């Protein structure tokens, strides 16, 4: 069981969601985050105060999937989230030790 975490540009959410649905992944968690990598921030001006804002708004998507789907999910997210411009984001894959479906008590593979 793996958890795939992707940082993407906010406007790409619907495309990524559609791509995941197409390959059979029907659940995900989205968090609004701020961050920076190679994409530069911008300047904001409020009267006499100028601020260099380096943090940019991004979305973090997390999907828990069985290990055999990992490369499909990575491909689906990459293709959907890509614009070709700096700041498209990154994908990280980690292992999950246990999974539980709260409503039924199902464990691990049955819970994914």
């Amino acid at each position: 069981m793996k958890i795939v975490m992707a940082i993407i540009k906010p406007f790409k959410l619907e495309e990524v969601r559609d791509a995941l649905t197409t390959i059979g992944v029907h659940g995900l968690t989205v968090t609004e985050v701020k961050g920076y990598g190679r994409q530069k921030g911008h300047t904001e001006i409020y009267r006499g105060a100028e601020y260099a804002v380096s943090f940019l708004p991004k979305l973090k998507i997390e999907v828990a999937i069985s290990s055999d789907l990992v490369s499909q999910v990575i491909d689906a997210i990459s293709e959907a989230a890509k614009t070709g411009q700096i700041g498209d984001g990154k994908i990280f894959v980690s292992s999950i030790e246990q999974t539980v479906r709260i409503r039924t008590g199902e464990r691990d593979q049955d819970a994914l």
Partner: protein
Amino acid sequence: MKLRSMLSLGLASLATTLTSVAVLAADAPAAPVPNKGDTTWMLISTVLVLLMTIPGLALFYGGLVRTKNMLSVLSQVFAIVALVAILWVVFGYSLAFTPSAIGDYVGGLDKLFLKGVTVDSVVATFSNGVVIPELVYVVFQMTFACITPALIVGAFAERIRFSAVLVFVTLWVTFIYFPIAHMVWYWAGPDAIADAAKALAAATDDAAKAAAQTKLDAVMADAGLAFQWGALDFAGGTVVHINAGIAGLVGAIMIGKRVGYGKELMAPHSLTMTMVGASLLWVGWFGFNAGSNLEAGGGAVLAMVNTFVATAAATLSWLFTEWMAKGKPTLLGMVSGAVAGLVAVTPASGFAGPMGAIVLGLLVSPVCYFFVSTVKNALKYDDSLDVFGVHCVGGIIGALATGILVNPALGGVGIADYAMKPGELSVADYDMATVMMGQLKAVALTLVWSGVGSAILYKITDMLVGLRVSPEAEREGLDITEHDERAYNY
């Protein structure tokens, strides 16, 4: 025979009655009574000025601070309105608008607790023979007393203790606002001047003339110091804006910069709120300026037009100044320009012509912009919401411009003279040097009285309750630490 005698008797008594009525009429002209239109306008103006403070100013300032301090700003402004309203009717009105032994500087306690003021009492306007109910003047002026200290809190937002605000404002209105309002606005009124001038004109021999002259001099001297200097301040450029502005600067410097100032992001949390607040300020300001005419006539109409066009000009002026200087047109720039324009036109609103008001609006924005950016950053003081840069500087520009724009040659209404032709308003000869000297002296008086006075009062407040919250409290946010509340719960 009987009928004829009855008739002649009847006619004779009628004649006597008519003659006595005529004599009565000549001896005692009916006292002027308020006009319902004037009273209505003053009631509306009062409501509009209250709207300027709550929620206008509260939202304007609130939107400019960080989320964690929004509620503290709203609370400070709201509390100040309630506090000063009470202080005003208890002793503020009396100190501002009655005579006293030291009547040059402040009034007396004749109207403590509004003693003697009834629903039938009337006060003078700027027209001979026109009066408004005294109570409506009391409540109209009350809104001015409420908004002025509320302006100050912007200078030290995000770090002042709530208790310090309450203590300081109580002291400040008592020792600074009430005296300055008295010094700039208190006078005996056009009818008192007209009566004394008429008596002088009617005096026949030298002794009577001398006595009448003394009486006229006394009536002219029954006025605040700045008023005697001929200083012109139609609606409070000096009394409200220069006054609050310098008090704000002194406070910002004495209290010190916010933790992290200059290094951390302190962007406004909601320019939406700020724009809503600025819009309410503009709309309400028509009550502030046009209501200061004290009657619903041509003067009020002129003040409204000036308040509209000067503000529009100042909005555009700040917009383009910033666009050229920084590369983008900003909303905050526009609303700041609007407020600067409103401040500058305040003293001039009933004196300038509309084209002069436009020029004033165009001029004030670049100057205020220079002060809130270049000067503030160079001198490194944290006047958080630019109370000095907009209100004090804008007020000074407005006060000086009033002296120039009142000139009839530039479309102004001219200087009023109530003694030349007693009973009517005449326009005195305009002499720029004399008028400008009055303006400069009033500006200087306010800067010194409020600047020095406020410094003393800040010190006293600090000793009594402490001015500033701890750095930890400041980091967490005043909403939680001062009020145990949040502005936002999502």
